[in-house]
């Protein structure tokens, strides 16, 4: 659904996005991560037809990046900071954008009704948007984004400024439009928990370049500074000796609990447990831990030199 190669955006001497290549299949929720100024919004603006790339080729929703007018018909974008016409009601607001996208009148009426239901704003359909809370506005923005049945939607920080309940509702709506409306979702967010829960795959960007991409679990394994495990044992001193014999580093001791570093070796935990049992150490529990997306992100954000120092 999104297949671009070598996409670059340069503003005079500033390189905002460098040689970006992405492939997002239909129906996927793709997370796009990076610190402020990484080039995420510029990338989204190029992929949605708002900006013309300086270099690069590709298609979004089957339309070339360079055919910007046509591209706008097949994508929807919810910008990071979206304004609203405060004097309009949601019915008028969605009607205005629906007509702008040339949605046939009869279809538009039913579409507005079902969208307002999806985003939970049916009860406020005739209230001026100026009276809405931030959460209600965000939900209306999401409805506006898909009013013309786009094939791909770009959501730039959709949960920004929402309270925890609002964030959860936004996540549910994103999942709903992905599954029920069969829309491919390209999600940029600083809420890494949200991205980890929602996205099938993610890419991490810094200074205009994609540094890592893949499924969150795979990234956790590969870039999360190795797996760890909590092991609750009967004799912690004896267990520590066994760990030393096995060459497994102990990260933390807390009462009867050992936290050990397992590295990238998938067999390390069963091997250690077998050695502990053989040594007569009682084991009350063993819980493998994988790195969170936040840990992966922070690890990737470090420069190679910083990473070496951390190691």
């Amino acid at each position, binding site marked *: 659904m999104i297949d671009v190669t070598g996409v670059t955006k340069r503003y005079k001497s500033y390189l905002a996005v460098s040689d970006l290549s992405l492939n997002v299949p239909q129906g996927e929720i793709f997370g796009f991560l990076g610190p402020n100024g990484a080039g995420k919004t510029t990338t989204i603006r190029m992929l949605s037809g708002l*900006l013309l790339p300086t270099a690069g080729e590709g298609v979004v929703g089957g339309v070339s990046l360079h055919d910007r007018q046509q591209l706008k018909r097949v994508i929807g974008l919810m*910008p990071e900071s979206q304004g609203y016409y405060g*004097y309009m009601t949601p019915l008028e607001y969605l009607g205005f*954008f629906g007509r702008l*996208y*040339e949605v046939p009148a009869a279809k538009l009426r039913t579409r507005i009704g079902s969208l307002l239901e999806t985003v939970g704003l049916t009860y406020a359909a005739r209230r001026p948007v100026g009276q809405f809370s931030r959460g209600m506005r965000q939900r209306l923005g999401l409805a506006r984004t898909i009013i013309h049945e786009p094939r791909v939607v770009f959501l730039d920080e959709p949960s920004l400024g929402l309270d925890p309940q609002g964030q959860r509702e936004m996540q549910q709506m994103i999942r709903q439009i992905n599954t029920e409306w069969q829309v491919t979702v390209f999600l940029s967010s600083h809420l890494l928990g949200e991205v980890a829960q929602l996205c099938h795959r993610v890419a991490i960007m810094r200074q205009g370049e994609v540094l890592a991409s893949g499924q969150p679990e795979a990234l956790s394994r590969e870039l999360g500074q190795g797996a760890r495990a909590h092991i609750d044992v009967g004799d912690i001193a004896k267990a520590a000796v066994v760990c030393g014999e096995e060459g497994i580093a102990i990260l933390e001791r807390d009462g009867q609990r050992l936290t050990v570093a397992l590295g990238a070796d998938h067999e390390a935990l069963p091997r250690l447990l077998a050695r502990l049992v053989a040594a007569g150490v009682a084991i009350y529990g063993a819980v493998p831990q994988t790195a969170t997306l936040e840990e992966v992100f922070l690890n990737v954000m470090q420069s190679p030199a910083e990473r070496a120092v951390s190691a």
Partner: protein
Amino acid sequence: MSTVRVILGKEWASSLLTPRGLLLLAIQVVTMSVLAIVSLSLPDLSLMGQAGLLKLLFQVAVALAVALATLAASLTVAGERDQATLESLLLAPISGTRLLGAKWLAAAGAGAVHLLLSLPYLIVMGAGTGLALWRVPAGLGLALLLMAGYTGVAVAASTISGRTFSALVSTLVVAAVLEAPGFAAGALPKGALQKWLATISPGDQVMTLAGNLLAGKGLSGLGTSWLTVAIFLAAVYLAVRYAAAHLELMGGDAQ
């Protein structure tokens, strides 16, 4: 064409039906009412004669309508940018030229409503002059050329300059540069310089054309005035086209 109609409808609603739009219309009506009452009641002014008063009131009505409509037009794109609504508009499959064209048309249309509101006052004022009354709306029709020009300047400035305040300032600067020669000509003794200065001001030339109509004269023999107005409108059209290209290139980004 339908997308242009959609933008036009929205712009008209925000120009005429919002509190700001209604306030600007009220300023036009109240000012015209006050001026009409003052002109008819003050003996000093009545010395000008009914035709002189009609001409004066006409000039004030046009200047006020153009100023108010230009003020509103200078907010049209910069205001959307300030309120972060511009990006959503640019995401719609409508070209920058059509978007700005619709905004220009709407701004000029709102200006026409301002002129229309002045019409009853001018007709009342013209009734005692023995003038064929069709000349009053025809004169306002000519004023629409000036309206179209200055609202176009405002739309272009609003797009290029980025923010509301700079849009307002740049529109005022353009208007001052274009109209200052006309005012200077009014203060100079008749001569080649005075004639040349008056010729290059579009406002002066539109008032000359409309003044001829209101004085019961024809519009022939005013080729220079028509030429000035035509050059002005052509330049504004090019400025709006340039602004549209700028808008598409920047993707709605502020400068």
